[in-house]
């Protein structure tokens, strides 16, 4: 239970940090912000790696699900960061 309260504390604090910094992002950059944070949500790949690579206590099915999770999350990561970069480069080019 103590562990739960600790992790929940982290969860709530992180939401506040998120709200604070994201409110400062100008509307011009909202689309890249969204695709960028979307790429960040690919962090779940961490969970997928731990699930699929674990040794003795995996089953065939759990490894399969884990690897499928890795595939989906890495599409998210690579697709998200690269398309964000493509967009941001276009903003960078012109300084007006």
């Amino acid at each position: 239970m103590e562990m739960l309260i600790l992790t929940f504390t982290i969860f709530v604090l992180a939401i506040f940090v998120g709200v604070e910094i994201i409110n400062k992002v100008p509307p011009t950059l909202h689309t890249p912000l969204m695709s960028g944070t979307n790429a960040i949500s690919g962090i779940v790949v961490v969970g997928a790696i731990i699930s699929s690579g674990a040794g003795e206590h995996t089953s065939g099915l759990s490894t399969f699900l884990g690897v499928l999770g890795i595939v989906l999350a890495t599409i998210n990561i690579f697709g998200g960061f690269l398309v964000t970069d493509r967009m941001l480069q276009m903003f960078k080019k012109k300084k007006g």
Partner: protein
Amino acid sequence: MQAFVNFFYLAAAVLFILGIKGMTKPKTAVRGNQLSALGMGLAVLAALLDFHVVSYGTIIIGILAGGAAGVYMARKVQMTSVPEMVALLNGLGGGASLLVAAANYLESQQLSGMGQFDPTVEWSVAVILSILVGAVTLTGSLVAVGKLMGKVDDPKDIRNYKLGVKASFALLFVGTLTLVMGDTLNSGVLLTLMILLCLVLGVCLVMPIGGADMPVVVSLLNSYSGIAGAAAGFVLGNNGLIITGSLVGASGLILTSIMCKAMNRSLVNVLFGGSMAAAAGISKSENDAFYEGKVKFASADEVAMMLETAKRVVFVPGYGLAVAQAQHATRELASLLESAGAKVKYAIHPVAGRMPGHMNVLLAEAEVPYDQLVEMDTINPEFPQTDVAIVLGANDVVNPVAAKDKNSPIYGMPILEVYNARTVIVVKRGLSPGFAGIPNELFIRENTLMVPGDAKKVLQDVIKALREG
């Protein structure tokens, strides 16, 4: 070693925060995005170093396959289709969280068999939440992609979907109780049924929402994909996942609320109010009668003549500009006017385009300097001094009815007050209603001229006429 691994997660989270902070200015944004990517690299490294991980073959194959697909998508996607791509990626992120929760459940069965794991209520709830949010994000996003692409229509009757939502939640509640109270780890069939139910729930939640409201839905699903990650973090007891997931969750929520405010609608109304057009929709004959004999038309040549003498010009791009891929022609005309001494600006409504900030990306692609893109509250006081306002494929966001008709479905929505400009030129393919399903009073105003046709074609004709004249 494990302490070291956790330290890596912390470093990754700090990099994500710094990365998003970089996004607060266009100049630092590229670097910010790179910092986030670096953070992701660290997090993946940390996961690979985790003491649980002993076999690497399948992991590497998975990363290579997913990476290749991701790179391909990011390179190929057209800027007009970015909303669809983001929606799809949201869905995949949700799907990954769902799979992680399911895989962890199976492993916990094995661990429990070895006497190394005892399920707690918190753990069970976290697994179910992770599955719920992940599955809803997955199928909800797929429906959103379909709607954005115009392949999935808004249903006429949304009652069945609403019923589906209620029934799913009721069944899920019963299922959760059964799972937690009963033999948690030997309920594979029940869990599978609940996964299927959550997938159906995602469809039922997004189907009734109108195509026009997809920007809100995409923002919200973005938030869900983060929350799904955080939930997976609770399942695995991984702080890195929790911090990062909640950051993304917060980001999506803020964008959602910005979108809702820009439309003067509550989130509840967007999610459960059904499609505006279906509710308010007028028939074709009513629409025709509204415009009958009151609309003044102009040709490209006449527009060119007007622009020759204009000192201040404001472009008002809408979704129609994106559909016609007219951003480059717009930029070309703007440059031409600027070289003739006119001041050119672009008025960007917060919900222009198909996702927050989409119009800015399209114009940036056409190399429009971002300091010429002006937000609604800044540009509205400038319209009275504007000689010509050119509306390109925008409709509801310039409809003056929003300010005065209490019965209008868009009443109270902040609009771009283009009608204050000396002359308004509306380039539009026809007089069909916009997303809100109502006729636009702007089009019959004294100072409005309609130029029927595809935005790109019309602009090119105007450019040609200006060059020749």
